[in-house]
Every structure is written in structure tokens, then in C-alpha cells.
């Protein structure tokens, strides 16, 4: 049986029915996965990689249509057989782990029930129990009686993986299984998957946009672009040399830490920092009687940021870094402690008046949600300019055009009347930056400004932020969980953990020589390590 590929796809074409006929999404794609092989399928959003993943088990939802080609799983034809035969093959020969761990489990059924349901599909020969499945993925079998919402995201995804392994299928499809999870959790999950694969010998198809991750876990890699596979290669060879220019572009587009030049402490008038906090604390759900809080998001943080400086605030999700950012801009009020931005306490938004000077402006993470879908780009910027403190309001249009030019959206006139959904993600974030700059702030608080963008444009946006700092002298508080991009752009790095800053220092120094366990963990979780493509890789910590 070893000679039968776990998955064999020949000339597969998939399209989506539209108002004017079928729009192709996957165009004559062919590849195969040998039994027990770990295959990675990489590409940017919209390239068709998930379409392929879902087509394999015929789970692609309407209006998706498979328009040609063949799919065989362990020799079983998935496209010509009748529905019942296909259904019989599902899960037994191939299973799938979906992207969103929160919604892929039935919310009203206990874990045990859901695992058992999968087990019931198999023959009694497999003979596992739900408890054994949980143990397999390192979850306490006591959690069997739990409901999905009582588990953490990582645990839920492990449950799904356990479920996927329940019938020992030949192939497991992982469709971006960790994008919604923390880097550290992602790393742990892949350690588990790799271990299980070694033990059980199933083949894996991993769909991801994260090339470094594939370098770490996959045997072979296929790169997709616009519905086609542009290159397929074993990982070691691919790391050395990329045949296709797009593969190369994809790889080099990711920001990397350049350890060749040590970070230099920027000149700063430390006497007058742009941002200064003292014993800043933010607690939620405080009981007025006991004084105890359900959650302390920010705990006694004292921090300084000099003008013209880019400081990255890094930490795992839930570490309190975003709350800190919102306090600095005045979107959230601290429970106690002081914040001074450019020597002034930020005015809480609820009391903010137009034209009131504001030293800090926010750049938001969600490029889709941070612009009102109903208003034009021009409207957004005009409002920002009009509300901006001080300055000349006579030439609003001129100022808007200037802002657009600054962020690289030219010709400016072509953008003014467009609405957000007519722009790409990168363009939207540029608009977000322009809006933030309208008030001529001393400090930009950029909360994960690139995490929702495609890999290939992340660096452009980071470069733009760095350029703005250089040209306008604005300081930047860059909030991220991604130590690589932090190392790429920041002068200094502050590591946040459970509401406190546990480590602070020049960026490269911190990365090269992390002191705190938490920092080390964050660095270790980076797929492929930090110095992957650098000429002088730093020894992994």
C-alpha cells in the first residue's frame, strides 16, 4: 500500500458560481502526497489554497463547484462516486481540521459526545475511547465532560486534532489550523502533531500562509498563486533556492531581524519623553466591597518613550499590551497611575472635543473594521483633518491630499471617492495611518497594524511607519506579538507578561539575549527561529 499516494490530485479545477457564470478559483492543479508525508501548501489569501483543502473531501460550500480533474485519497476516487460512497470515505480515509477552533465544535454537545460520534464512524477494530483520544493530544481526560466553550482555543484545536485521528485516516488536512491562536500555542500544537505523525504514520496536508512554519514542519512545499501551483519542492531544496520569482518574493517579503547592525539608542531628550507612565494599572470587574478584581490587565507599569523612537511592546495574547495602548491614546481610562503624553494626560474620548490637542493617535489592527464601510476615504480623512487640533482649516482638501501622498496613496484624487471595500488591505492600513497623522501627533500607537495583512505587504507597511518616524519625527509605540517584526522595526523592545513589563532593552539585544522566560518562549515559538535567513544566525535560545 505504500506505493499508493495518500492524496493524488490531477488537474483539479474549482470555481465559484457567480452572477455571470463560474469564476475559476483553482486552475488545473496537480500534486500528490505520499503516504506518511508532510506536505505544505503555501500562498497568500485568495490564492485558492483553502479551496483545494475543502474540495478534497467535497466540503466546499456553495457556490463552489469542482469543474474538472481528479481527486484520489489513498486510491479512492472522490469525484466520480455517488454521495454515499464519498460520505463513507470521509474521516475514515481522510479527516480535516478547520481554521477556527472556536466554531468547529458543536457548542451544545459535550467533548466526549463529539469524540464518540467520530469514533462511531469507524470499525470496532480501532477500539479507542474518547479518553484515550484526549490523552493522545495531551489533554486531561477529566475534560471529557466539558463543553467546547469551557476549553481554551488551543485545547479545542487539540480536541479536533484528536477527533481527526480517531479513525487513523491516511491523510489529515490541516486548513490553517492555528491562525486564530497565539504563536506559543501554535508551536505546541505542531510539536504534538509532528510527534503523532511519527507515531502513527499518517500523511498531512498543511495549508498556511506562513512559510517559516512550513520550513520547520513540512517535508515538501507547494506554493500557490492565483489558483495555480507555481512551484513544488522538498523543503531543504526550497530553502536553498526558489525556482519561481513569486516564491522568492514571498520569502523575502517577510520582515526579518537584521542582526548585522546593532540597534542604536536613538538620540532622545529623555528629560522630556513623549510618553511617560507611572504605576499605571487597569483592572476590570473590581468588586467595590472586597476591592478584588476579576482581571488586572495592566499592572503597575512605569514606562517611557522618547520622541522619534520606535518601541515595540511585545507579549503573548492577553498580556495586557493592547489595553496599555488604548490607555495611552485615551480610549480606555486607567484604574490608577499616571500617563503623560507629551507632558499631558490623555483626554478620555468621552470628554474629547474637536480641535483639542491630542498627542497620541491610534493605528488600528482591523483594517476591515477600522474604516466605516459607508463613508469614502475622502470623508474619513476630511473629518480627521477638520477635527484635528489647531492648524489651518482653510485648505482641508490640500491637507488631505498631502496626507494621502505621505502614505503613498497616489494619485490622491483617485482615492478620495472610493469606499473602504474598494481598497486592498494594505491600502486601507495606509488610510488608517494617514488618518492618524492628520492630528500631527507626537506619538503613534500602532496596535498589531500588520497582523491582518498578507505577508507580502507587511514589510511595506512597517517600512512606511519607519519612514514616517524618520520624516516626521513621530514616536511609535508598536504593539505586537511578533518578535520578528518587532526586531525588524523597533529601536527598543519591551516585553509584557501578565500586565507587567518584564524585560526592556535595545531591540536586538533583547532578542539576542533574552532574560525573561517569557521572552525566550516568544522567541522560541517563532517558526524556524529568528535568524533563519540571516547570514549570521544567532544561536537559538
Amino acid at each position, binding site marked *: 500500500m505504500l506505493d499508493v499516494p495518500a492524496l493524488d490530485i490531477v488537474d483539479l479545477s474549482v470555481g465559484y*458560481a457567480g*452572477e455571470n457564470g463560474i469564476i475559476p478559483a483553482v486552475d488545473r492543479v496537480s500534486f500528490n502526497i505520499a503516504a506518511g508525508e508532510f506536505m505544505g501548501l503555501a500562498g497568500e489569501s485568495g490564492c485558492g489554497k483553502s479551496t483545494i483543502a475543502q474540495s478534497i473531501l467535497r466540503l466546499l460550500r456553495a457556490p463552489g463547484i469542482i469543474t474538472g480533474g481528479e481527486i484520489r485519497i489513498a486510491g479512492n476516487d472522490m*469525484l466520480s462516486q455517488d454521495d454515499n460512497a464519498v460520505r463513507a470515505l470521509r474521516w475514515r480515509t481522510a479527516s480535516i481540521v478547520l481554521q477556527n477552533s472556536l466554531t468547529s465544535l458543536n457548542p451544545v454537545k459535550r467533548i466526549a459526545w463529539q469524540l464518540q460520534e467520530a469514533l462511531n464512524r469507524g470499525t470496532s477494530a480501532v477500539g479507542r475511547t474518547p479518553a484515550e483520544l484526549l490523552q493522545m493530544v495531551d489533554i486531561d481526560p477529566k475534560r471529557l465532560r466539558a463543553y467546547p466553550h469551557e476549553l481554551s482555543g488551543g485545547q479545542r484545536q487539540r480536541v479536533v486534532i484528536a477527533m481527526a485521528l480517531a479513525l487513523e485516516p491516511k491523510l489529515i488536512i490541516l486548513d490553517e489550523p492555528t491562525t486564530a491562536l497565539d504563536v506559543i500555542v501554535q508551536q505546541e500544537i505542531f510539536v504534538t502533531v509532528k510527534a503523532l505523525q511519527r507515531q502513527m504514520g499518517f500523511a498531512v496536508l498543511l495549508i498556511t500562509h506562513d512559510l517559516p512554519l512550513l520550513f520547520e514542519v513540512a517535508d515538501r512545499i507547494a506554493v500557490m498563486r492565483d489558483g495555480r501551483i507555481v512551484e513544488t519542492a522538498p523543503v531543504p531544496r526550497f530553502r536553498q533556492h526558489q525556482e519561481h520569482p513569486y516564491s522568492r518574493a514571498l520569502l523575502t517579503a517577510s520582515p526579518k531581524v537584521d542582526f548585522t547592525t546593532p540597534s542604536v539608542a536613538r538620540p532622545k531628550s529623555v528629560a522630556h519623553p513623549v510618553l511617560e507612565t507611572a504605576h499605571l494599572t487597569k483592572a476590570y470587574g473590581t468588586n467595590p466591597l472586597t476591592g478584588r478584581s476579576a482581571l488586572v490587565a495592566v499592572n503597575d507599569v512605569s514606562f517611557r518613550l522618547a520622541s522619534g523612537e520606535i518601541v515595540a511592546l511585545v507579549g503573548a495574547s492577553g498580556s495586557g499590551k493592547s489595553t496599555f495602548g488604548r490607555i495611552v491614546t485615551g480610549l480606555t481610562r486607567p484604574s490608577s497611575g499616571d500617563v503623560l503624553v507629551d507632558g499631558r494626560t490623555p483626554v478620555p474620548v468621552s470628554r*474629547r472635543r474637536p480641535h483639542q490637542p491630542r498627542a497620541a493617535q491610534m493605528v488600528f489592527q482591523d483594517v476591515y473594521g*477600522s474604516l466605516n*464601510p459607508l463613508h469614502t476615504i475622502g470623508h474619513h480623512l476630511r*473629518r480627521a483633518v477638520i*477635527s484635528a487640533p489647531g492648524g489651518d482649516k482653510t485648505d482641508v482638501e490640500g491637507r488631505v491630499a498631502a496626507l494621502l501622498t505621505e502614505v503613498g496613496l497616489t494619485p490622491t484624487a483617485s482615492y478620495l471617492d472610493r469606499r473602504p*471595500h474598494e481598497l486592498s488591505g494594505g491600502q486601507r492600513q495606509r488610510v488608517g495611518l494617514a488618518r492618524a497623522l492628520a492630528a500631527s501627533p507626537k506619538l503613534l500607537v500602532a496596535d498589531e497594524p500588520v497582523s491582518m495583512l498578507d505577508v507580502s505587504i507587511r514589510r511595506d507597511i512597517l517600512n512606511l511607519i519607519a519612514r514616517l518616524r524618520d520624516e516626521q519625527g513621530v514616536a511609535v509605540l508598536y504593539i505586537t506579538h511578533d518578535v520578528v517584526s518587532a526586531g525588524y522595526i523597533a529601536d527598543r523592545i519591551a516585553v509584557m507578561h501578565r500586565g507587567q513589563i518584564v524585560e526592556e532593552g535595545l531591540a536586538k539585544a533583547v532578542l539576542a539575549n533574552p532574560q525573561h522566560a517569557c521572552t525566550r518562549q516568544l522567541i522560541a515559538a517563532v517558526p524556524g527561529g529568528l535568524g533563519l535567513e540571516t547570514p549570521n544566525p544567532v544561536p537559538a535560545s
Partner: protein
Amino acid sequence: MSLSETFGAKARRQLLGSIPVTVGLVILGALVAASVLAQVIAPYNPKRATGGINEPPSLAHLFGTTGQGQDVLSQFLYGGQNTLWVAFSIAVLTTLLALVVALTAAYFRGWVDDVLTLVTNVFLVIPGLPLVVVLAAFLPPGPLTMIMVLTITGWAFGARLFRSQALSLREREFIAAAEDVGESRWRIVAIELLPNMGSVVAAYFVNQVIFAITAQASLEFLGLGDGGQITWGSMLFWAQNSSALIRGAWWTFVVPGMAIALTAFSLALINNAVDEIGNPRLRADRLLRRAGVRKPSATLMTPVKRDA
């Protein structure tokens, strides 16, 4: 989701092309036009006895006459006018009230929200019609009482609906962004929040018109309306009063009853169709069918169509 977001020009064309919407619009249009033009096209004075008592439909009286000898067609036309303006007023007022409560609650949050939500929920659980009946029993009958009573008892569901919609919008980052830019509160509510609730508000409004028409008719039928006003509800009341069914004068019943039912039906059809077209899942099904794939059930099995 705003209307313009949900519906591109294409979808709008589709909406107008759908059979239920066409049927709904034609019925509604005919009823509204007939009512608006009552003064012009009504053949008789609706209050005057212009024929014999309970005359069946004839050329002189297309819809027959009432137990008091009035022309049913003329009453139907004038009645539509009175019924519809009251219904629309109620729908407008309940929608406005619900919006004000919801936006206030969603925007200020904190104790303001708590209090408003509590009031809303109390109004929601107190059964409507009994309260309306008791209220109407204490107030002088007439359109104003009708509007007042049904507005007081009819806004709560909308407030809850709008509040949850507003709260979820409030979490969208563009609101935080607008705050950050320094927009004033009222401007954020009016310019950023409200327009994004367009489709929900529109759907609610249509439902409120339906609610108002039937509730109004019910109250009038119970004798809690102004018997001197001609409305569809009071026509039914008078028909019931003169024992129209037992005397076989079905036309005095069926005309206003069907007028109410058809108005409500046409609005419901339109609302439902808008829902359907806005539903991405159903839209996907439709596209699939258009591409020539027959989907007999909801079972998830991606179709294979090699000749496409």
C-alpha cells in the same frame, strides 16, 4: 450591514426582479394608491347611505353596501387612507422611539444602559394586547389614542433589536477610530452608527407597519376604536355589528378583512424577500442553481460539473 453594502446594484436589480417582491410591490402599490386617491376615485360619500341595506355587489356598488346602506368600495378606499396613515405613524414613532432608546443605551452604556435595558425588558415581557386593551379602555377612542397606545406598547422589541445591533457596531473599530479622531458623540451616533443600521431599521419598520395595521384592526374590532371614523378595522366592527355573516353579507366582511391581510401580506413578502436576498447562504444556492447545479438538499457535497 448597510443596505448599500448588502446590496450592490446587481442585488438591487435582483430584488426588483424577484417574483415575491414584484407581487408584494404591486399589491402594496395598488392599495396605497387607491387609498391616497380615495377622494378622487371613491364613487360615493362613504358615510352616507347611498344604497339599500346590505346590497350585494352590483354595477352601482361594486363591493356592495353595508348594513347601513353605505357603499363598501368607498368605505374601503377612505378606510385605507385612515388605516394606513395611522399605521405608518405608529411604525414611524415606534421605530424612532426604539432607536432613541437603543442608541442612548448603546452609546452611554453604564447605568443609563442598565436602566433603559431593564425598562425595555419589562415592556417586552408584559403581554401586549391585554395592556393595550386596558389602556385603550381608559382613553377616549380615536386615532391619537390608537397611535399613542400602540406606540407605548410596541417599541420595546425594536429597542432590544437596535441595541444589540448598535452594541455590536459599537465594538467595530471604526467607532473607536472616530472617537480617536475626536468626533463628538452625537456625530458618531448620527453619522457613523446609525447609517450602518439601515437595513435592520428598514426591516423593523416594515414589520411595525404590519403590527400596527393588525393591532389597530383588532382594537377597533373590539370596539375600542372610534366608531365614527372609517377604517378597515371599524368596517369589520360594523359588519360584525350588523351580523353580516349571519345575514349573508359576506362582502362587508371580506373586503376590509382582505384589505388588511393583503397589506400585511405584501409587506411581509417584501421583507422576507429582502431577507432572502441578503442571506449569503441562500444567495450561494441561487448562484449554484444558475450555474446549472441542482441542489436537492442541504447535505454538504460539493458538486462536480466537468463541462463547465
